[in-house]
């Protein structure tokens, strides 16, 4: 390993779109429709495994992702954003609701109820990039096997051809083909994440679920990886579900953003609108908590500090789940659960008083 190793792994230069002809305008066709998705984990007790309650990790989530778009999914830890992503790729089987996937040929399938055998075709088209590049790669497999396994399992390539395909893939993510026979320990965190990205791309997917894909990376490497994800999206016409807690990265990469709180969507809107003019008090508080990288902005603007803890999804509060921490809560919030409703075109929010509140967004500057 030489010092030069680092200098070589540059982000590949932006290429011309491979799918230019087939993508005349930003696509408006929905690729994935998630309807009333529920993932309740049972709490079992006693030797007979009696179910005494449920952890409602995801409880009635609705959203649509259009082809070629990036939907950001944000929220505090424990809000169910990762579980939602895992239900979409069917790592876990949701306990209710629908995950309707529109195939390239125009058919629609509900992935939520499909048995594993029939899922195989769709598993090739919906892939996942994991958070921790250290635990998501098998330490006993060289890069060739890690990235090549999906190709071999699906009978797409083998032998010499497989090697060429993998070399091409890791070239696309900015690694050198000489690295094929190396094991994960020989790579830095950023390079490992690139291997994870190459693995996700191996089967030419249409939808990629990025679960905190850049959260574990250093600042300088994070910027490279975000750029790489954007380049690959252009090149392969990918659709992303970008699950993250870092709002500045989400703002940078997403077309639309959905905010989750204790298993439910509380707000979903176009990125610019959500950041400039949030309609839910929770979104406002989240935005205000992000530290601004400029000392001169210190003590400027209202700072909102959320007290208390995220509600327990096994025993959520009555009414609006957010009311114990909400500074605008009124009596109605403690009894009446707000529905997610469209207030402006494309801007849905679950708050009784969304029209009345004057919430503060992020100043554009």
């Amino acid at each position, binding site marked *: *390993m*030489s*010092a*030069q*190793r*680092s*200098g*070589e*792994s*540059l*982000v590949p230069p932006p290429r011309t779109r491979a799918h230019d002809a087939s993508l005349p305008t930003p696509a408006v066709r929905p690729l994935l429709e998630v309807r009333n998705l529920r993932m309740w984990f049972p709490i079992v007790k006693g030797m007979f495994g009696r179910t005494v309650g449920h952890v409602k990790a995801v409880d009635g989530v609705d959203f649509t992702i259009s082809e070629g778009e990036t939907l950001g999914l944000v929220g*505090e*830890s424990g809000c169910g954003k990762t579980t939602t992503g895992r239900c979409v790729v069917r790592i876990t089987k949701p306990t209710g609701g629908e995950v309707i996937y529109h195939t390239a040929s125009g058919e629609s399938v509900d992935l939520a109820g499909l048995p594993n055998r029939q899922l195989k075709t769709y598993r090739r088209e919906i892939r996942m990039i994991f958070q921790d590049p250290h635990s998501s790669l098998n330490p006993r497999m060289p890069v060739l096997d890690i990235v090549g396994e999906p190709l071999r399992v699906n009978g797409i390539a083998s032998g010499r051809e497989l090697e060429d395909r993998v070399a091409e893939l890791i070239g696309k993510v900015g690694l050198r083909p000489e690295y094929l026979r190396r094991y994960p320990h020989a790579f*830095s*965190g*950023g*390079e490992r994440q690139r291997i994870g990205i190459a693995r996700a791309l191996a089967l030419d997917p249409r939808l990629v679920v990025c679960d905190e894909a850049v959260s574990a990376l*250093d*600042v*300088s*490497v*994070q*910027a*490279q990886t*975000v*750029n790489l994800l*954007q380049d690959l999206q252009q090149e392969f016409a990918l659709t992303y579900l970008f699950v993250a*807690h870092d*709002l*500045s*990265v989400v*703002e*940078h990469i997403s077309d639309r953003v959905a905010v989750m709180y204790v298993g439910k969507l509380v707000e979903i809107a176009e*990125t*610019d609108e959500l*950041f400039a003019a949030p309609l839910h008090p929770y979104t406002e*508080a*989240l*935005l*205000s*908590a*992000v*530290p*601004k*990288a*400029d*000392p*001169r*902005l*210190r003590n400027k603007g209202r*700072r909102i*500090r*959320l*007290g208390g*803890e*995220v509600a327990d999804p096994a025993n959520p509060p009555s009414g609006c789940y957010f009311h114990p921490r909400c500074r605008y809560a009124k009596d109605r919030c403690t009894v009446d659960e707000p529905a997610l409703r469209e207030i402006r075109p494309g801007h849905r929010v679950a708050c009784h008083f969304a029209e009345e509140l004057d919430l503060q967004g*992020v*100043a*554009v*500057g």
Partner: protein
Amino acid sequence: MTPPPDAPVSQSATTVADCLIEIRGLKTHFFTDEGVVRAVDGVDLDVRRGRTLCVVGESGSGKSITARSILQIVDDPGRIVAGSIMYRRTDAEPVDIATLHPRRATIRAIRGREIAMIFQEPMSALSPVHTIGNQIVEGIRLHLRVTKEEAHDRAVSFLGRVGIPKPETRMESYPFQLSGGMRQRAMIAMALSCGPSLLIADEPTTALDVTTQANILDLIQDLQAEFGMTVMFITHDLGVVAEIADDVAVMYLGMVVERGDVDAVFHDPKHPYTRALLRSIPRMGARSGARLEAIRGMVPHPFARPTGCPFHTRCQEAMPGVCATIVPPRESLAPGRDVRCLLHSDVERLERAQRVAP
């Protein structure tokens, strides 16, 4: 360079008495089977009394090891091999911590009593088999001459002070019964319970949600104002630095490459690495759809340190043939403001000096 509006200490009056900790030429190396890792390689740093110093750097920059060296808790096979850490108390003779034996009485009286530390992972820093209360009381009883009851009361009052609800009941809780934010608060209570003059915080908010992070940052600032503590805050998050720092030190591969007050470092950065870091972070509200300006390459592997300036392999402004051969010296631009970059040095003089004494 404009001083920040809230700067209590004037920029020019950096006297020796202002410095609580003065680190000069600190080298902490790890002697592993594969070779020597120069984790900290010549760090110069001043921690000024009553202020907040933020040490910024990516992983592998040596920021945590610098902090651990101050407390003499560098893990084997690591060792402080050179340099000095002068600790200047107001009421006693200065001590050079670097010369103290890690397990002898002198440092043990300082560690936890006068200099306390909070860690990134409260779950691994707290004992899982002792209650929060027992762990705090143990620290108090070790350092202060108090009875069991007094120690208990003190622990309860500190748990309340850091914003833990029902502190009396929480004394009996085990760490796993608390949420991440509450655990971090319990650790802060433990660190403050003996009234330290310096609090070292090693990425205390990295594992927390933004909302909890904001609360913990507020808490540390409130406590600092209340107890007049000095804080050394280690982080990689430039947003956090901008929120809480008075002074900033930017580290790269075991060296402090730039130092200054927070406004100067953010608005007039001198080192190409600082400039590149500031450009590479996505800024909220500045959405343009444009690409982020990434720093090329990766942080080099510890066994493959570049020669000369450690940053030259990734630097856009590197001068061919110069930056790869000369280790940049510390150039002082103003009191408390210095940079290690050959762009700010007299290169010809350095080259001549190198020819004379290679």
